[in-house]
């Protein structure tokens, strides 16, 4: 009775999950099998948005149009739909006016001073006259991070360029458009001309802004540019001398920026404004006398407005700020002349993971572990919590070893992990693959021209050098620390690095960051995978064991012969540079000396933190002493280096491929096979193969996976990758992520939840794409076409085992079973309603066209338990014990009989 009933419920749920999955595939089977977009490098061939616009700067002089500049700008955007928070989208353009007076950080408010920048803004609303005005974009709904981008004032001339803008309305040409009435007292005295551009929040609240934000700014904005907070996404991007430009714009959703409030339900627009300069009309005919410049005012206004740029195109802005020509700077992006030249790119945000916290009812099925899976789970999971019939699933990120331990002690019910647990689990537990992804060595590096470097190559030995703190980082250590004295100061000075990565300045200014890799401090399978790769490489291993590299660099002796692979990377260096500490230049370290190089390494416990730091180049080396009360030790504290200056960035970090794809982080190509002589110096990459994470390189790694049958596991053969020609094209950072779920002891509801999740992930969850429930970038779909059909099939069968909770772990190869006839249960009792095949699934599946279920009803989802659906009541025989009581009666009779007979027959005469 019990067994069959459970099986039926389980199957029904699995089937429902499959149906649910099928619903997400509106004829998108074409995308099944093909490798997904793995990295930003592998950008789609055709951009999601492309528009060409002719823009001109045409003054109105004496009633006649005078065109001084005209350009045809083409703008392309890589992706515009189902965007997630902080997702990096590539914006490229051509034909724009080259930028002059360039500032390092294009996200800062100060960067608005650049001349002829391409201004990229995220604005709430759509650019269409067919919607209500409140839902339309306007400069008031466009986000800027600082108030200086929304306020301008002028003492002289009294008629700055924006007052003689020929396209501005009469109201905008007064001396104080947008100024609150009454003018707030805290906002300094009123200048002769000022322009306030308020920001209108998503809730309708108006933030007037003003000088230094005196009249109120949104909570997410800051009064001044900050080097510690996340930079604003407002970008004053640089157009090159050839008129082309590139920017990676990171969109923000309503959770990140509630005032802007872009979400799946609130449409937004990416506005690109190629700044052309103000189209001037000094005559101002028809305006009130007060708004018409006369005399010297008119001359000044004309001169000021018609300026075409103080700086040469491509020139950097010098220290003295304020020399720029306002008429052509980014500061006036909101002016009518500039605003009318905008290119509006409609963008839609994906349904946020946040929906789960508000819609989920009842307890969720929690899965702990794997941080490399987070981008996939944040796409999959809303699918479950938006479906009222499904058990909500939650992914709680922890290090994989911790998750395995928790599962081993039955503290949790399921774990995402990338390794099989040593010694297995006490309970029967499936180890079902859910995704093929990996780690990425991400970097934010500017080349010798200050541009983004995007073709970094790294060898395992270079990674080992960074991890072992073998670069001295600062000259004091190089001088005083005998063991590292002959090593290059940082990686940019390492001949091995220089040989592989030409074009990067040797001896970068961010030397401390360039001597380490921002890594993970907690126990993690990512570290295990990384160190497995390093350990397999003969050159790296030999170097760790004490052999100097061809240029004589040696390993930090604290790490000599370190056993690898390991789950957690230790910080072993203990050198304290006395000279530095005694000098008092870093009072924190003078007062409380600690080893220096571990501070340089300063790993993070979370991969997501590293990804964030890599996206905004927030260097984490904790070497900056901050004293709240200068000269005293009270509250003094070591702080991270903070944001690096644009043009001089140099950071390396350990991230996941999923994060790299979502946030648009550059991922290094890693060395696989070497045919060059290993002991010799080299000056270029000849004879060495470097593989970047792409769909095809992950696919090649997938081909190499070795299958273990007991326990079922798939492992990447690092030895093959680094030595065998077949492994040459395989990305060495590839990792398989598994869900470990016990098949006994789970509460029925939870078991149902996990089973439905596994069933979903095995099929529909492997469709690559941007939408909700799809497999995002950075993941290789586990499909037959990718040679991973066995993994998906196994997960389907694992889902059934989890649902059954009968304590069995499916073997690798499916047992031959009777083909699955979807047997409708005979339903003898109408009172009990639902059956195995008609379980109410969800609103989703009811809208599904029925045939769509067929591709998912593959034989692999069968198990022997399918057959038990139409069970009959078993005959449970009591066996011989059932006749015990009559038997005993027989014994009584026999005893009496025997006694009687004996009495009668056996006697002796008296």
């Amino acid at each position, binding site marked *: 009775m019990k067994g069959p009933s459970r099986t039926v419920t389980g199957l029904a749920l699995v089937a429902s999950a499959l149906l649910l999955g099928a619903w997400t595939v509106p004829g998108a089977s074409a995308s099944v099998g093909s490798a997904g977009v793995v990295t930003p490098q592998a950008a789609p061939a055709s951009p999601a948005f492309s528009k060409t616009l002719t823009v001109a700067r045409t003054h109105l002089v004496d009633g006649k149009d005078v065109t001084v500049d005209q350009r045809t700008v083409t703008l392309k955007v890589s992706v515009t739909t189902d965007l997630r928070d902080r997702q990096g989208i590539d914006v490229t353009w051509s034909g724009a006016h080259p930028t002059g007076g360039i500032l390092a950080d294009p996200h800062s408010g100060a960067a608005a001073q650049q001349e002829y920048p391409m201004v990229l803004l995220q604005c709430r609303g759509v650019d269409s006259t067919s919607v209500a005005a409140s839902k339309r974009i306007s400069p008031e709904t466009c986000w800027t991070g600082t108030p200086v981008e929304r306020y301008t004032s002028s003492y002289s001339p009294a008629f700055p360029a924006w007052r003689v803008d020929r396209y501005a309305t009469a109201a905008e040409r007064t001396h104080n458009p947008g100024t609150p009435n009454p003018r707030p007292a805290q906002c300094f005295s009123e200048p002769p001309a000022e322009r306030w551009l308020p920001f209108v929040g998503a809730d309708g609240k108006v933030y007037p802004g003003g000088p230094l934000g005196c009249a109120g700014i949104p909570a997410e904005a800051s009064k001044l540019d900050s080097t510690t907070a996340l930079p604003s996404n407002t970008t004053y991007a640089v157009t090159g001398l050839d008129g082309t430009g590139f920017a990676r714009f990171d969109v923000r959703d309503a959770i990140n920026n509630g005032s802007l409030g872009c979400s799946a339900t609130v449409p937004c627009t990416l506005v690109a404004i190629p700044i052309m300069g103000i189209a001037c009309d000094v005559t101002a005919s028809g305006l009130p006398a007060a708004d018409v410049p006369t005399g010297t005012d008119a001359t000044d206004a004309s001169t000021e407005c018609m300026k075409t740029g103080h700086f040469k195109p491509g020139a950097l802005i010098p220290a003295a700020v304020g020399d720029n020509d306002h008429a052509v700077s980014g500061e006036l992006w909101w002016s009518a002349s500039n605003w009318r030249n905008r290119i509006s790119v409609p963008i839609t945000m994906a349904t946020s993971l946040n929906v789960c916290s508000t819609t989920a009812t009842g307890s969720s099925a929690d899965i702990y572990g794997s941080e490399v899976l987070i981008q996939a789970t944040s796409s999959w999971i809303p699918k479950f919590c938006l479906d009222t019939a499904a058990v909500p699933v939650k992914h709680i990120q922890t290090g994989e070893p911790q998750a395995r331990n928790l599962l081993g002690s039955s503290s949790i019910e399921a774990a995402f992990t990338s390794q099989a647990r040593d010694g297995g689990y006490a309970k029967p537990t499936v180890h079902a693959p859910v995704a093929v992804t990996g780690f990425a060595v991400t970097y934010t590096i500017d080349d010798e021209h200050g541009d983004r470097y995007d073709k970094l190559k790294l060898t395992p030995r270079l990674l080992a050098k960074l991890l072992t703190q073998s670069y001295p980082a600062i000259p004091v250590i190089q001088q005083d620390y005998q063991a590292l004295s002959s090593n290059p100061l940082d990686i940019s000075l390492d001949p091995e690095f220089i040989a592989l990565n030409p074009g990067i300045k040797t001896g970068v200014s961010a030397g401390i960051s360039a001597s380490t890799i921002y890594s993970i401090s907690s126990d993690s399978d990512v570290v295990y995978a990384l160190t497995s790769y390093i350990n397999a490489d003969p050159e790296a291993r030999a170097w760790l064991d004490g052999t100097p590299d061809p240029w004589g660099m040696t390993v930090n002796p604290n790490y000599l012969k370190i056993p690898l692979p390991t789950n957690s990377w230790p910080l072993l260096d203990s050198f304290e540079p006395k000279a530095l500490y005694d000098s008092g230049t870093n009072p924190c370290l003078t007062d409380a000396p600690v080893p220096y190089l571990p501070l340089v390494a300063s790993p993070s416990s979370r991969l997501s933190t590293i990804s964030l730091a890599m996206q905004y180049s927030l260097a984490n080396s904790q070497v900056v002493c901050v004293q709240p009360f200068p000269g005293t030790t009270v509250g003094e504290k070591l702080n991270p280096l903070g944001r690096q200056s644009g043009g001089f960035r140099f950071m390396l970090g350990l991230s996941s491929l999923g994060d790299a794809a979502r946030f648009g982080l550059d991922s290094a190509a890693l060395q696989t096979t070497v045919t060059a002589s290993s002991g010799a110096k080299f000056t270029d990459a000849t004879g060495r193969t470097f593989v970047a994470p792409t769909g095809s390189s992950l696919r090649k790694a997938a081909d190499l996976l070795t299958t273990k049958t007991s326990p079922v596991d798939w492992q990447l053969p690092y030895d093959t990758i680094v030595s065998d020609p077949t492994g040459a094209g395989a990305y060495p950072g590839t990792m398989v992520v598994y869900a470990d779920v016990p098949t006994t002891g789970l509460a*029925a509801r939870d078991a149902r939840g996990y089973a439905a999740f596994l069933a979903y992930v095995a099929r529909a969850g492997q469709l690559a794409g941007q939408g909700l429930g799809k497999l995002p970038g950075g993941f290789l779909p586990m499909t037959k076409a990718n040679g991973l059909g066995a993994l998906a099939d196994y997960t389907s069968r694992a889902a059934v085992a989890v649902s059954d909770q009968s304590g069995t772990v499916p073997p690798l190869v499916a047992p031959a079973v009777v083909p699955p006839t979807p047997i409708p249960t005979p339903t003898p009792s109408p009172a*009990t309603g639902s059956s195995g095949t008609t379980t109410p699934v969800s609103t989703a599946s009811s809208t599904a066209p029925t045939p769509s279920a067929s591709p998912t009803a593959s034989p692999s989802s069968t198990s022997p338990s399918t057959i038990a659906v139409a069970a009959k009541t078993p005959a449970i025989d009591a066996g011989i014990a*059932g006749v015990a009581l009559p038997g005993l009666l027989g014994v009584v009779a026999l005893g009496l009989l025997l006694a009687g007979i004996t009495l009668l027959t056996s006697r002796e005469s008296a």
Partner: protein
Amino acid sequence: MTTHVVIPPAPPQSVASGKHAADRPAPIRGGAGGRRRLTPTGAMVVWAALAVGFLAAWLVLFAVVLSGVQEARSQKLAYDHLREQLAAATAPLGGAIAPGTPVAVLDAPSIGLSTVVVEGTSALAMQDGPGHRRDTVLPGQAGVSVVYGRSVMFGAPFARASQLAPGATITVTTGQGEFRYVVDGVRRPGDPVPAPPGAGTGRLVLVTSAGEGWRGTLAPTTTVFVDATLTGATQATPAGRPVTVPEGERPMGRDTASLLALMLWLQLVVVASIALVWTWYRWGRWQTWLVGLPILLAVLWGAAENAVALLPNLV
């Protein structure tokens, strides 16, 4: 004992009476009249056969009659216990419940059944009353709840369960309230199993044993299921139920855990018997009767209680 006089104190055979043991080579009346004496071998056979027969008869008596007395007492205690817990709202609602704990009161008026259900379906646990299978939800919760009951021994609470007609009402009271089930029907081997209850509905399955024909009463050989569907809303199901139960708690399971106890009880029976024979001769017949009978009954009771645990839990 090698002498020709062997007279155990078996009352039914004592027709004569005397003051001294010497009086008795027990006179036994034989078929053809006249006084005859058994040969020593014959006497041994007779006594042995009678002793075995007596023990077997005792077991049957215990199984059919006396175990019911014991069950009635257990039920009384269990009812008092559960009633107090229901009043105090401390009755177990789910999760891991210790076997033997009373969990519900089950009433089926149409067959005159009113009994306390205890947790666990091992043969020993079910000596106290019908047992609730530990890997199923409690009655009143969503899903299938399974209750086993005996049909012969220990009061035979489910002896008439197979007479439950479709539409009959079964009322179950647990710590979560009173639940009314309507019988769907009686299921015998070969009948189709009904589909599992849908979400938010509950089913109660009563399981007992039945036999056919002449031996049906004493020797049920097969299982019978009674399906009943919950009317009304289900209650929450606390987590932590065992997901499987050992063989001994499945239908027709036997409790081999009682073997050790049985062995010890049998040793006591032997010791008590020897001691009583000794007192019979050394002390006196009536003294032995007075003192020995309760002792003998007690050890025989204990032995029988454990012996019948070796019989299937549904019998």
